[in-house]
């Protein structure tokens, strides 16, 4: 019974996907708005059900070891479902996707894959979960088939994803050979007992990291993300940059910490170096961008670098910082892409220059944007700040002061380009900026929730922090 209750969210998501796909067939063209509401309510209900019924209890290993029913799985489930729900809100009325049942169905299926990624305790399950999460995203990125850029985004995303996942699978096969088991938790002991030398083991780890690095857009596997983020429909980009990335981190944390304790120092060093390069590359290139989606893409590469810092720390505080950072980052980046989506729908432009006069057209939205960008930049007392603080502390605690210094310098650079956008929003004017800006009720509500959430995470951190502590306690 525990087994079924534990995968209640997955069951609910599957049912929701089926409903969406079936209802779509029956609906007439003018009634397609309903799909958005069904998807939103379905996800909200799933979210509530998850909190109420699927909290982890005593028994952790379920489904014959396929899944782990622990706090990590639980927290990340909430993260993914919330991400999907916000994405649904921002997809509302978006041309070519907002009225498509397939789109919502794929979104929900992808979320299902992610929730499994967060919980997978077995390489077989992990592989299936990663693909279940990724393949719908390839289609979603290329969903606006009338838009050449979108099709190209899907195309590039698929090719890069398929290549890296093939490399990752090769790594999986080697791990299976070294350990003789597919259970991630049994792997550590089996590897230790089987006298696998460090070189082949590190080879398999690096191969696996290619796949994980692709999901979290870590250097040098990040190249796809600016192109794909720019081309994909903006709501999809928001989902890619938050939930999908968070899923990658969930897997990375679990696999690294659980399966490879014998070579912790080696992979720690590797991840620390990659973290430093990732954030530096992301932030420096972001400085030069003129398209806001591309800029946010590079900025999210930078954020991936910060989060990697917490993973590289390989400590309890490290895991806490990763979870906390992801929670704050989820809300801020979803809101950020929300603004981009709303603005694009009104003006048809993604250029940062065209944000001039935004504050006049919609003071409330502009204020929320200010908030969001300040949180991304790590200004207290917002969630982004506390996330950064934790990540830096984790790095320092792990004796990687140099990494923290790199992180701090990067934070300064990052602040600059966030403020550049704010400069256009608040200080520049353009013709016709007296015209006010209609925003759908559900979208303003979503943005208010994001902003409040970010402030909450920055001011009253105890609840989230304790949750993150529980997550960490399943590893240490």
């Amino acid at each position, binding site marked *: 019974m525990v087994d079924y209750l534990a995968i209640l969210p997955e069951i609910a998501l599957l049912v929701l996907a089926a409903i969406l796909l079936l209802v779509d067939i029956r609906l007439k063209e003018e009634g397609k708005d309903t799909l958005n509401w069904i998807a939103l309510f379905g996800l909200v209900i799933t979210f509530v059900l998850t909190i109420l019924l699927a909290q982890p209890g005593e028994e952790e290993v379920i489904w014959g070891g396929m899944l782990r029913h622990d706090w990590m799985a639980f927290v990340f489930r909430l993260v993914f479902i919330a991400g999907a729900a916000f994405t649904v809100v921002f997809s509302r009325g978006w041309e070519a996707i907002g009225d498509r049942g397939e789109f919502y169905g794929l979104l929900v299926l992808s979320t299902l894959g992610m929730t499994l990624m967060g919980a997978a305790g077995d390489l077989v399950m992990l592989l*299936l979960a990663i693909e279940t999460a990724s393949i719908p995203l390839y289609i979603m990125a290329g969903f606006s088939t009338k838009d050449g850029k979108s099709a190209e985004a899907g195309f590039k995303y*698929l090719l890069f994803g398929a290549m890296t996942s093939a490399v990752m699978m090769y790594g*999986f096969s080697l791990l299976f050979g070294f350990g003789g088991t597919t259970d991630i938790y049994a792997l550590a002991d089996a590897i230790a007992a089987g006298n696998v030398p460090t070189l082949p083991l590190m080879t398999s780890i690096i191969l696996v990291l290619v796949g994980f690095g692709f999901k979290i857009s870590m250097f040098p596997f990040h190249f796809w993300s600016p192109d794909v983020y720019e081309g994909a429909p903006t709501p999809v980009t928001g989902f890619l940059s938050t939930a999908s990335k968070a899923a990658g981190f969930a897997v990375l944390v679990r696999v690294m910490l659980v399966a490879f304790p014998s070579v912790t120092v080696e992979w720690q060093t590797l991840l620390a170096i990659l973290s430093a390069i990732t954030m530096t590359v992301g932030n420096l290139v972001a400085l030069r961008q003129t398209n806001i989606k591309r800029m946010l893409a590079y900025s999210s590469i930078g954020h991936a670098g910060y989060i990697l810092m917490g993973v590289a720390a390989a400590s309890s505080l490290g895991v806490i910082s990763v979870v906390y950072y992801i929670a704050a980052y989820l809300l801020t980046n979803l809101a950020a892409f929300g603004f981009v989506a709303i603005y694009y729908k009104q003006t048809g432009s993604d250029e940062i220059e065209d944000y001039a006069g935004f504050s006049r057209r919609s003071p409330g939205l502009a204020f929320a944007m200010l908030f969001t960008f300040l949180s991304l930049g790590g200004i207290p007392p917002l969630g982004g700040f506390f996330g950064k603080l934790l990540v830096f502390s984790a790095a320092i605690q792990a004796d990687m002061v140099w990494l923290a210094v790199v992180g701090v310098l990067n934070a300064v650079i990052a602040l600059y380009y966030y403020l550049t956008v704010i400069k256009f929003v608040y200080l520049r004017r353009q013709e016709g900026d007296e015209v006010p800006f209609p925003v759908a009720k559900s979208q303003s509500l979503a943005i208010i929730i994001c902003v409040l959430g970010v402030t909450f995470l920055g001011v009253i951190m105890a609840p989230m922090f304790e949750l993150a502590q529980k997550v960490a306690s399943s590893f240490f």
Partner: protein
Amino acid sequence: MIPLSNYLIVAAGLFSIGLYAVLARKNAIMILMGIELMLNAVNINLVAFWRYLTPENVSGQVFAAMVFVVAAAEVAVGIALIMTVYRRRDTVSADEINLMKW
């Protein structure tokens, strides 16, 4: 008897050939075919490991079967996306599909 190493070396070779197709062939369909080669290399590995190290346990074969599923799904979606791009741009050459850059 055939040692395990023989299978692993052929698998590594197949993987590298597939990788070369992915990295170097311009035609996107060829890239997908290259990925198929890589996945087959993975499967040779899995089955060989199963037979030589854990024949009493079926997990290697199950794993291989799941790789089939993944391969099929990726190819199907891949071809769908390639068709979309082809309709818009009249080409399937990976290096001509570069509207977005820098």
